[in-house]
């Protein structure tokens, strides 16, 4: 009936509960796992108690997560999915490091900004909340850039989908520099809304732009920007 015990069983006999609750110190956890390798009785007990612990989350009061949390998570996921698709099926699924391509088309920047002006998408800009709190930079009626606690997020509504087979890419132009590509790639949702994490360097930039690019993004813009947002 009873399973065989392993070396050190007397010492570890009571530790199964603390282990499955995550209440052992890290060094104890490692030592206990070594014990489990050689102790069938403790392995069986831990297996049974792990099932019990898995029921504990059901005991907490239910709460609905805020919709903005879903938007934040999915913005990161869709950006990484785009990069993954561009990198091919063998790509590593770890989070991509922030990329900095070298600028190969700087002289086009002025023309791109002018093009944005021409197509009427450079909207009235209002900068609010320059103190320690969130900073919101409006890009017309349908888009805004929110910079809060070092994190920048572009939030847009009623945004047209990019041309077939292309995604939107965010560009950041530092003061006195030329637009630099970012790894912020996105496609608006079916209702035209989008929530996009933007590299926090944008807070000190001169201009942020968005253009449609091939999946995976470009080192230099290949189309006129659909959004141009002066920052400071």
């Amino acid at each position, binding site marked *: 009936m009873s399973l065989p015990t392993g070396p050190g069983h007397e010492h570890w006999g*009571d*530790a*199964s*509960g*603390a282990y*499955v*609750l*995550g*209440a*052992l*110190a890290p060094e104890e956890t490692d030592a206990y796992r070594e014990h489990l390798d050689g102790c069938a009785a403790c392995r069986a007990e831990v297996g*049974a*108690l792990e*099932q*019990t*612990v*898995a*029921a*504990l*989350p*059901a*005991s*907490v*009061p*239910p*709460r*609905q*997560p*805020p919709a903005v*949390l*879903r938007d*934040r*998570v*999915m913005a*990161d*996921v*869709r950006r*990484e*999915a785009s990069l*993954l*698709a561009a990198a091919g*099926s063998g*790509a590593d*699924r*770890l*989070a991509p490091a922030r990329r900095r391509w070298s600028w190969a088309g700087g002289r086009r920047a002025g023309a791109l900004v002018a093009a944005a002006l021409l197509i009427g998408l450079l909207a009235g800009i209002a900068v609010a909340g320059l103190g320690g709190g969130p900073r919101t930079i409006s890009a017309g009626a349908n888009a805004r850039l929110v910079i809060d606690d070092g994190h920048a997020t572009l939030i847009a509504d009623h945004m047209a989908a990019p041309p077939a087979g292309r995604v939107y890419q965010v560009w950041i132009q530092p003061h006195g520099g030329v637009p630099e590509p970012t790894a912020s790639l996105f496609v608006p949702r079916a209702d035209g809304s989008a929530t996009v994490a933007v590299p926090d360097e944008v807070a000190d930039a001169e201009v942020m732009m968005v253009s449609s690019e091939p999946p995976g993004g470009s080192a230099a813009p290949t189309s006129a920007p659909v959004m141009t947002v002066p920052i400071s």
Partner: protein
Amino acid sequence: MARDARALADEDLMQLVRGGDADAFAVLYERHAAPAYSLAYRMMGSRSAAEDVMQEAFLSVWRSGARFDRTRGSVRTWVLGIVHHRGIDALRRGKVRNRPAVDDDGAAERIEDPLLTDAEAARREDAAAVRAAMRTLPEEQSQVIGLAYFGGFTHTEIAAMIQAPVGTVKGRMRLGLMKLRDELGRGAVLPT
């Protein structure tokens, strides 16, 4: 794609997530975000800290989908396990050690969904059964289980807090969980 993905079982969605399918992941998020957030909130005691844990945990689910092993339990159990680990990490980093106590019974932000699916109604019955089983434990056992699982405290920290020997705390944890297992086994509500 998203419409098709909604018809798939969690385990099939995980196959797609492994291949980098964001639409499949979005369906998984919709299915499991509410219980995950409820757990994170219970542990962290504030919206902002719970949201940070959720963001970390679900991005971990997205990035480490290949580690899901269907022979070891359901997707929901796996996801909640990741949320719990991230919560423990956050608590032990000391960022929110002075978090406010959470009111289990009447939280102001609690939202009840009037439209319950059959599956959700069954989950609420299970939740009631787990709470009922917890109430059958002696206070000294439910206390140490709660401090460890939801509070992220180690058994030595708990021993110091309640001024009991470490061995006593470990024993209460083990006995409490074994009793809980017996209670839940009667109602057959243990998750897979």
